[in-house]
């Protein structure tokens, strides 16, 4: 089988670098061009030092892009939508890792992003990028919009509960603790080491944009609400979502197990982590560094209907590049685990 020629637009960021790392070792991929306007002409490893001796590719300008089989767009938000017509002429398939095509309702996009969408007619051409929810659509898709990292962990954690109508629709509270790489590789005052180091910084207590994706994917035709907060903590990779939901009926843990097993029992990248002894009883982001897993655990409050669902991912992997590669594998009919088998490190 001939290899798929893939190019990356905006490959100097952390997400682009992670995607490069994956695509360089994917057995069915021929890496085409990788673009960066800031580093045009420079070797990739000047920006992504972990890729030294893996490739001698250099960054090119996006203006030099040639035809390829698939384009991965790792551009800042509000960039892909402005150039999507140009990108569509270069490749029959596109996976966009920005937020530009995630929300299916242009009015919701405007509400959460504060401006009108540049091409609302194209939004519905994109499949929302969580494979566990949209696998069949992805197999037939030409365009996929990768999900947000916080949204991915939250949605996967809560999906079996909402799908089976088990929780009260407006009482879900999600608290995400996130690493610094979520903020990208652009420097700001808050990322300066003396300021960033050691923080437990409540940076988005309300109105986080990923709330819109969570509501979209968990609604199942009903009006729901989720109350989402995000806190920056002192890790580089990874995030932990702690989701508090209130069950409609006072179920036992054994019953809840049944729903999670039914939803995820055959999923290659979802693990239920809920043990009664040992150090790692619940999901722990640090064990997931570099992996495409989403670990999910839960605990029912014995004195109320509250169920706490805990999910963890590597934000650059299952929350971005890994998830995009999983979608790519599905698009092309490859085993969806291809290039994503790394099981993580321990200790780390």
């Amino acid at each position, binding site marked *: 089988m001939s290899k798929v020629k893939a190019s990356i637009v905006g490959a100097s960021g952390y997400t682009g670098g992670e995607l490069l790392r994956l695509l360089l070792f994917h057995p069915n991929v021929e890496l085409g061009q990788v673009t960066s306007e800031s580093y045009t002409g420079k070797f990739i490893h000047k920006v992504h030092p972990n890729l030294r001796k893996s490739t001698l590719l250099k960054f090119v300008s996006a203006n030099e892009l040639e035809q390829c089989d698939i384009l991965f767009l790792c551009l800042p938000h509000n960039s892909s939508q402005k150039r999507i017509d140009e990108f569509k002429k270069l490749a029959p398939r596109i996976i966009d890792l920005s937020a530009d095509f995630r929300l299916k309702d242009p009015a919701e996009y405007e509400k959460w992003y504060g401006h009108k969408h540049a091409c609302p007619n194209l939004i519905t051409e994109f499949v929302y990028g969580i494979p566990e929810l949209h696998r069949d659509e992805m197999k037939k898709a030409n365009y996929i919009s990768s999900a947000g990292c916080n949204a991915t962990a939250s949605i996967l954690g809560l999906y079996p509960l909402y799908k089976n109508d088990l929780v009260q629709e407006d009482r879900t509270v999600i608290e995400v603790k996130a690493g610094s790489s979520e903020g990208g590789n652009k420097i700001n005052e808050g990322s300066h080491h003396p300021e960033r180091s050691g923080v437990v910084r409540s940076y988005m207590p309300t109105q986080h944009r990923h709330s819109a994706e969570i509501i979209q994917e968990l609604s199942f035709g009903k009006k729901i609400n989720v109350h989402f907060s995000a806190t920056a903590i002192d890790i580089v990779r990874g995030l932990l979502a702690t989701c508090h939901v209130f069950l409609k009926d006072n179920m036992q*843990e*054994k*019953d809840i*197990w*049944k729903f999670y*097993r039914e939803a995820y029992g055959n999923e290659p990248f979802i693990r*239920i982590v*809920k*043990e*009664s*002894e*040992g150090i790692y009883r619940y999901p722990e982001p640090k064990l997931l560094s570099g992996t495409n897993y989403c670990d999910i655990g839960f605990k029912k409050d014995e004195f109320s209907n509250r169920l706490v669902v805990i999910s963890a991912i590597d934000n650059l992997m299952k929350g971005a590049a890994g998830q995009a590669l999983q979608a790519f594998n599905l698009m092309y009919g490859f085993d969806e685990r291809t290039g994503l088998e790394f099981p993580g490190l321990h200790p780390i």
Partner: protein
Amino acid sequence: MTTECPVCGAQLELIEGTVVGELIECPECGTELEVISLDPPTVKEAPQEEEDWGE
């Protein structure tokens, strides 16, 4: 011989030679279980040492 984990509901296989009183571990939830009967196959959650998580 199969039975159900009383904690998570997973199907458990008791291998030949299993004896009453033996401790086994549920492959899904990791709970340590004590075999209390072979006919019918039955297990219960084994007593655990409580841990103090930093309190």
